[in-house]
């Protein structure tokens, strides 16, 4: 219980309100996290006094709203004497407990569904809408309760009604973000932050009122808000299964439409797709998943499962279908393993563990993803740098030899025989001795150059061939630029320098054709080469 109290406090306990009898406390009251609701008569120590006050003045269990409390599997296990880890693992994995089965199935189902819906939101650059929706739903629950209670007392906690209220306000929150973004000079980020806090504030104010309505402070509504303190039950799982089925069917049917919406909504609009309705449908799916998931596993988990799985899947593929599947997979996996870990150890809230498992999978994907992962990106960059370096080195060597040999195009024999000292090479480009030595080292390993003595090298046969080819490509491109792009001779070198690394053989053939044959020779440079100008 102490944990619950501290949690309430840390999550922003209403210090002011707490000390004052008649101002209700909005923030405290997470005592409902694990303990049943306490009646005001109970007074023991000062801690309980605090609790009493908060219950009198209408506590609003915001902490629970934020975190949810799905992780009660261990509470089932904890009631028995704790067996050793291995047998606990076996017990969890074999799904012997009904409770474990239900929770595992429920969270995994939710993870998969949220991952799939989240994919489209991520691609639509609206990843944080789930956050807004979850917070905006709060007043909906209070108003639904007040309305139902007002119509006929005692019916205030009818679940579908409360869900409908939450859905309506969640949707209203998302729509107000879109409207503010569209019709005012306030940007979407500020619109989200505003909507989130205004709706949540309204909810907080209304909940202090609900507490004072006769019947409002009984356990039912609180249990609902707390996210099923005991744990998920079979009915919830059926609800999840139903939602998952609807979401999956809709996504599969509307895959093409949603894809086009995510990548080019203006094109979609121009093609005559009902962009507004597709957008609303997508938001509707997000709201559904958020509302359904929130009351069972807590808001922050739902927000995380809407964002983390798709963001992870993005590192592995460029294909939206695969990304959707991947997001479902990551969502399911993080929920599954998170739930198992939290079941194995006491005091591990499943919601938090699931989020952290997801974050771990995200970190793995960020590093090792095969499409956009950090490692592969770094590797590709390195390879590109090496290729560029090799090309630069060989062309510099060619130009040195060309300058030294009187004949405008040196023969292979002349090229192989010529000695290239380091000092000459350094003056060819803006590179330093260390990086040049590294490049030459790589070239030597690739059998393009060979050392003669000290800091002097020669080209090998294959190196000479390669150098000739590279110089030729460079000059062809320069000539092309001068002839067709009307670029001044003094400017073509840098342009060609950038492009020469990516000229492929087909393009070279095309250039040759354009420039009317060119034997296999290297054309004379159209401007002073750096070899001749450097001294």
């Amino acid at each position: 219980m102490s944990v619950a109290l501290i949690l309430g406090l840390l999550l922003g306990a209403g210090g002011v309100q707490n000390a004052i009898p008649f101002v209700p406390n909005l923030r405290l009251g997470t005592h409902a996290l694990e303990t049943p609701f306490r009646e005001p008569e109970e007074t023991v120590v000062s801690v309980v006094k605090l609790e009493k006050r908060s219950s009198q003045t209408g506590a609003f269990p915001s902490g629970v709203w934020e975190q949810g409390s799905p992780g009660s599997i261990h509470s089932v296990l904890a009631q028995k004497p704790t067996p050793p880890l291995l047998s606990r693992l076996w017990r969890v994995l074999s799904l012997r407990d009904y409770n474990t089965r239900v929770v595992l199935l429920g969270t995994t189902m939710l993870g998969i569904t949220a991952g799939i819906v989240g994919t489209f939101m991520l691609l639509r650059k609206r990843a944080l809408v789930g956050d807004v929706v979850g917070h905006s739903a709060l007043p909906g629950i209070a108003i639904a309760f007040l309305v139902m209670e007002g119509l006929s007392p005692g019916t205030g906690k009818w679940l579908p009604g409360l869900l409908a209220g939450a859905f309506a306000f969640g949707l209203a929150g998302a729509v107000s973000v879109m409207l503010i973004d569209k019709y005012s000079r306030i940007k979407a980020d500020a619109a989200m932050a505003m909507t989130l806090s205004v709706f949540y504030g309204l909810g907080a104010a209304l909940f202090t009122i609900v507490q004072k309505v006769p019947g409002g402070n009984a356990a039912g509504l609180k249990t609902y808000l707390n996210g099923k303190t005991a744990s998920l039950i079979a009915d919830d799982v059926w609800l999840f299964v139903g939602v998952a089925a609807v979401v999956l069917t809709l996504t599969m049917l509307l895959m093409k439409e949603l894809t086009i919406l995510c990548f080019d909504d203006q094109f979609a609009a121009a093609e005559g797709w009902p962009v507004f309705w597709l957008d609303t449908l997508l938001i509707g799916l997000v709201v559904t998943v958020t509302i359904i998931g929130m009351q069972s596993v807590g808001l922050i988990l739902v927000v995380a499962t809407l964002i983390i799985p798709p963001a992870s899947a993005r590192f592995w593929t460029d294909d939206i279908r695969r990304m959707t599947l991947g997001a479902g997979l990551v969502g399911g996996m993080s929920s599954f393993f998170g739930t198992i870990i939290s079941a194995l150890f006491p005091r591990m809230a499943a919601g938090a563990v699931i989020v952290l498992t997801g974050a771990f999978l995200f970190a793995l994907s960020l590093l090792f993803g095969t499409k956009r992962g950090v490692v592969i990106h770094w590797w590709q960059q390195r390879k590109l740098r090496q290729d560029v370096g090799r090309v630069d080195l060989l062309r510099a060597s060619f130009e040195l030899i060309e300058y030294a040999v009187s004949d405008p195009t040196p023969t292979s024999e002349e090229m192989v025989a010529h000695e290239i000292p380091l000092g000459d090479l350094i003056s060819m480009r803006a590179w330093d001795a260390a990086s040049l030595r590294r490049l030459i080292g790589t070239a030597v390993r690739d059998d393009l150059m060979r050392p003669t003595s000290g800091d002097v090298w020669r080209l090998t046969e294959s190196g000479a061939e390669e150098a000739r080819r590279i110089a030729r490509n460079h000059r062809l491109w320069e000539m092309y630029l001068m002839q067709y792009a009307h670029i001044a001779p003094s400017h073509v070198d840098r342009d060609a320098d950038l492009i020469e690394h990516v000229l492929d053989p087909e393009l070279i053939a095309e250039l040759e054709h354009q420039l009317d044959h060119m034997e296999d020779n290297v054309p004379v440079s159209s401007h002073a080469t750096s070899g001749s100008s450097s001294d």
Partner: protein
Amino acid sequence: MQRVGARPTDDVCQTKSIMIHEFFQLLSGWSSLDTAIAGSAALTAMSCALPGAWLVLRKHSMMGDALSHSALPGVVMAFLFAVSMKQAGWISEAQKDAFLQVFLFVGAVVVGVGTAWLTEWVQRLGRLDSGASLGVVFTAVFALGLLLIRLDVDDVHIDVDCVLFGIIETAALQTVPGTSIPEPVLVNGAIFLINLLLMVLFYKELKLAAFDPGLATSLGIPARGIHYGLMAVTAMTVVAAFTTVGSILVIGLLIIPAATALMLSERLKVVLALSVGVAALSAVLGHVLTLTLPRMIFSRLGYPTIEDAGTAGMMSVTAGMLFLAALFLSPRHGVISKLIHRLRLGQKIAGDDILGLLFRFEEQTAIRPTDITVPDLVAKQNGISPWLMSLSVRRLLRGDYVSRQTTGELILTERGRESAKSLVRAHRLWEAYMAKHFELPDDHLHETAHRVEHFIDDDIQNRLQTELESPEMDPHGKSIPEKTEP
């Protein structure tokens, strides 16, 4: 008859005066405690509004959300640290509270800057959209905080009473020793002053970094340093505000006043001053409404037990209402003023079109159709709604541009003819200009000229005429009317 008709008005008046009376009656219970609460709330809101304004300007609003969530592990760790220091015997029980306060701020700043850094890192390294990387980072950090609470706090056997009341004692009821100033007033007031001072000191840097980071960097201002500095200040402010308003509503205090101010002004200094003002107003008004509105509403709905709602929630709602008011009523950027502007423009254009058409019919009397009135014809040609069209006709009649004949037909007055002549002249000059300088086919000239004729004033007409060497005919062979002498 008359009495029956008058009664509802009386009722409304009566209800109104009762409600106003009730409002002030409820407020008459205002005590010094209320003043303390409203003052604390106002200072909290004001301290949040300053960094919040920069968050909005830099389009980092959701960073406020992330920071207030990710402060959790910082707070937990500060808490653990203070407790373990006490257990180790380094500090006394009495010192612990003071240390805890310091640790809370340090922890929040460390975690806040860490979150901002991690977000940027994930965004850059993973090439993700900023919202997504923010979402990944802050949910994970928050989850870590939750886990920390559950794993560690229990083991440390914290003296719950002390910790709880160590923080709660800093509420509005608790005054600073020796004075009657409530502690939140002191704490949040101090934060407000610090924020104000920092902003005055770094105003130029903040401005440059927000509007042109590239220029800032080239001038030697560390734009990234400014970013992280702002994050640290925001994190500190948020933690100080937690004790009065809680973590979610802090986001509102950060963002809403600034957004409201942005609807009202374009000048940065005015925006900053306005956001502080709006923040204070929404805090005080929020508390006033807390005391009055719920009871006034719910006593009518049959719940006499409802006395008030939470001040924090109402503050946020009030700020939201103020934003909505600004959204609709702002003189320049408001929805209503934009609508009025568009309506006026539409009216002017429709009126111009009527005048132009009447003038053309006068040029060639034969082709004036008899089966359709001129306004209807214009409406049909340009897709203008009949409602707007009748407004325009009324405006023309009132301005004595046209007069209505007994047959109902409109004819130009002398004044209208002058105005129409200028329009047609603008239209044809533009056509001639387009024909001369752009390679457009003749049948494409009319459309653009028709659109632009409303905006070509005398000055441009003269310049066009000089440019075209005083042409007599437009490309379609129609004469360009002479300039009317004033």
